[in-house]
C-alpha cells in the first residue's frame, strides 16, 4: 500500500508529520550523524535569540520517572551565528526548517521575525511563548498572560514575511490553555505548537538539595504525554481549523497516532532524541507501519479522529 504521509501546517506542506521539538535537536547537525535529516518532516531549531546567551548554571538536568527536568535557559549563539552557520547547513542538506524564536521582549520577537523572514528557505517561524516576559513584575512567561502572548504573536506576524506560517508555541501549565490558544489564533497565528515543558522540581535525596540549579526546571518526556494529549484534544475541539504540532513525550509511532487522533497535524519528538538519537526515523517508520496495519491511506485522515466517534480509520 502506498500511504500518503504528507501533512499541512497552513501554507507549509511537510512530506510527513514527524518533526523535531525545539531545543531537542540543535539545528539538525548532530542528529544527521544518525539519519538523513531530509527524511523527516522538519527540524524545529533551538529557540534563537538576538544576542548570544550563556544560559543557566549547572546542574542543568535531572532524570525523573519517565522524564527529565531541565533548565538550559536558552543558551545559544544568537541569531547572527544561527543564520550564518546553522540554518544554511540544514537547508543545504535538504532539511525543512521551522525556526523557533525567543525574544527578551516583544520588540525583539519582531526583530527576530524580520531577520528570519529575510532568509529564503525557512519553512515556518515558531514563537516560544515560554520565555520570561521582562515587562511582567512577577517574572511570568508570556504564555501566562493570554493578552501579552497574543501581542507577541501579532508582532511576529506583522514582521514576518506574509507567506511564512507563524506558529505559537504554548505551555500547558497556564491558567487556561484553550483561552491562550484562542488568543493566539485571533492574533493571526497560523498554527499552534504544544506543549512546552511543565514546571517541576526534584530534590536529590542524597544531598537534600534541589536537583537542578535554581530549583524549578522544565519537565519533559513520556511522563507528560497525557498532559500534552489533553491540551491538543481540548484546543482542537475549540479550534478545529487551526493546525497543531503536538509534542510531549513522543517515543513511538503509536504516540504519533495518539497525538494526531487528538487533533495534531504534525508531531514533534523532543526528549526522546536524547535517549535515542535515531528516534525520529524509527518513530516515522513505526507510524507508517501503524497506518498500513490500520489501512489508513492518508496520514491527514487521522487528524482529530478521536473527536469523531466510530470513525472508520
Amino acid at each position, binding site marked *: 500500500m502506498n500511504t500518503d504521509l504528507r501533512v499541512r501546517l497552513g501554507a507549509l506542506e511537510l512530506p510527513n508529520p514527524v518533526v523535531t521539538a525545539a*531545543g*531537542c*535537536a*540543535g539545528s539538525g547537525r*548532530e*542528529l544527521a*550523524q*544518525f539519519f538523513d535529516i531530509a527524511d523527516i518532516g522538519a527540524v524545529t531549531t*533551538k529557540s534563537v535569540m538576538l*544576542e*548570544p*546567551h*550563556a*544560559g*543557566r*548554571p*549547572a*546542574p*542543568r*538536568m535531572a*532524570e525523573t*520517572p*519517565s*522524564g*527529565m527536568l*531541565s533548565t*538550559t535557559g536558552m*543558551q*545559544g*549563539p*544568537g541569531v*547572527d*551565528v544561527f543564520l550564518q552557520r546553522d540554518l544554511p547547513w540544514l537547508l543545504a542538506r535538504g532539511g525543512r526548517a521551522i525556526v523557533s524564536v525567543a525574544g527578551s521582549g516583544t520588540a525583539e520577537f519582531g526583530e527576530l521575525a524580520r531577520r528570519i523572514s529575510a532568509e529564503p528557505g525557512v519553512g515556518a517561524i515558531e514563537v516560544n511563548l515560554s520565555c520570561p516576559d521582562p515587562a511582567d513584575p512577577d517574572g511570568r512567561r508570556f504564555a501566562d498572560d493570554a493578552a501579552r502572548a497574543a501581542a507577541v504573536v501579532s508582532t511576529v506576524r506583522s514582521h514576518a514575511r506574509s507567506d511564512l506560517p507563524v506558529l505559537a508555541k504554548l505551555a500547558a501549565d497556564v491558567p487556561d490553555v484553550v483561552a491562550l490558544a484562542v488568543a493566539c489564533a485571533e492574533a493571526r497565528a497560523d498554527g499552534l505548537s504544544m506543549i512546552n515543558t511543565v514546571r517541576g522540581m526534584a530534590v536529590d535525596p542524597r544531598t537534600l538539595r534541589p536537583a537542578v*540549579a535554581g530549583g524549578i526546571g522544565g519537565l519533559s*518526556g*513520556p511522563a507528560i504525554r497525557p498532559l500534552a494529549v489533553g491540551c491538543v484534544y481540548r484546543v482542537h475541539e475549540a479550534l478545529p481549523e487551526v493546525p497543531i504540532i503536538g509534542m510531549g513525550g513522543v517515543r513511538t509511532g503509536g504516540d504519533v497516532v495518539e497525538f494526531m487522533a487528538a487533533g495534531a497535524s504534525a508531531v514533534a519528538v523532543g*526528549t*526522546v*532524541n*536524547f*535517549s*535515542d*538519537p*535515531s528516534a525520529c526515523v524509527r518513530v516515522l517508520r513505526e507510524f507508517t507501519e501503524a497506518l498500513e496495519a490500520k489501512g489508513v491511506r492518508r496520514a491527514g485522515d487521522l487528524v482529530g479522529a478521536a473527536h469523531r466517534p466510530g470513525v472508520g480509520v
Partner: protein
Amino acid sequence: MSDYGPVQVRCPVLNVRRVDAYYAITVVAPGIAERFRSGQFVSVAVGGDHSSTLLRRPFAIHDVKPDYGGTVEFLFAVRGTGTAWLAERRSRDLLDVVGPLGRPFPLPRDPVNCVLVGGGSGSAPLFPLAQSLRRRGCRVDFVLGGASADRVFSAITARRIAETAVFTTDDGSFGTRGRVTDVLGRVIEECRSDVVYTCGPMPMLRAVTAVAGTHGIPVQVSVEETMACGTGICMTCVIPVVGEDGITRMVRSCVDGPVFRGEQVRFDDVGTIPFDALGAPGWKGAGSSRPAESARDIA
C-alpha cells in the same frame, strides 16, 4: 578528533565480569571499535524498552579488541538504578549503545614522557590511552588513586604497561595513604614528565591541573559532567572553558569535551555562569567584532 561520527547499535553482551569494586562489560560492536580513539566514551540505554529511566548512561571506553569483528569494554561502579541494572546483564543480552562519543585525548607528535593520573573509575580511559602513547614511543607513568584498595583500578595492568605506577588510597589500604596530588609532584620530577593526562572527579582534576601548573607542564583533563544526550543536542552538560582568544564560553562537555586542556577549564566557576562568559547576563557583544561562538570555531 575522530574521523567518523558515532553509531547507534544494539549489540550483544559478550561478558560481564566483576573487577574489585567494579563491573566490566564487553559488548560486540565493530562499528564502535573501529572508530574508537582513546578518551572517547559510549552511552548505554538502561532498563529495557519500557524503562522509566529514560536517559542513557555514559561510560568511558576502557578497551577495544579485534575479537568478533570488534569488541568494546567499559567499566563501572554501581551507583544508582542504571548501573544496578547493567550489573545484572548476562552474556547474549542486547544493549543499545551509542559511540564512540566525545573528543579523544590529543596525542603528542613526539615521544615525550606522559604521566596518567586516574581517580576511581576515572582511571578507565587512561588504559587505552597508555597503549596509544606506548605505540608512539612515549614513556608512560601511572598515578592511580581511590577511596580504598578495591577502588584503585587495574593496578596490575598499570604496572605492566607503565614505566612506573604509584597508588594512593584515602584509607591507606593500598599504596600511599592520601590523594593522587600528594604524590604527583614527585612523580613528575622523577619521571621528567612532559605532559599530564587525567580523568576523575572534578575536584581531583582541578588539583591535578594546579600541580601540573606548578611544574609548568600541560595537562589534559577528562571531565564527568551529567549528560542527558551525549550527542551535543541538549545543552545540559556545559562547563565554563576559556578559549584561545581568552573568552570564556559555556561549552558542552559531551562533544566539545570530555577532554579539555586543564588550564582552560574554569574549575572555580563550574556550576555557575561566570559574569564574563560569552552571553552571560549583562554581557555585551561588541557588534561586528563579536567573538566567535563556539570553542570549535577557533579550534
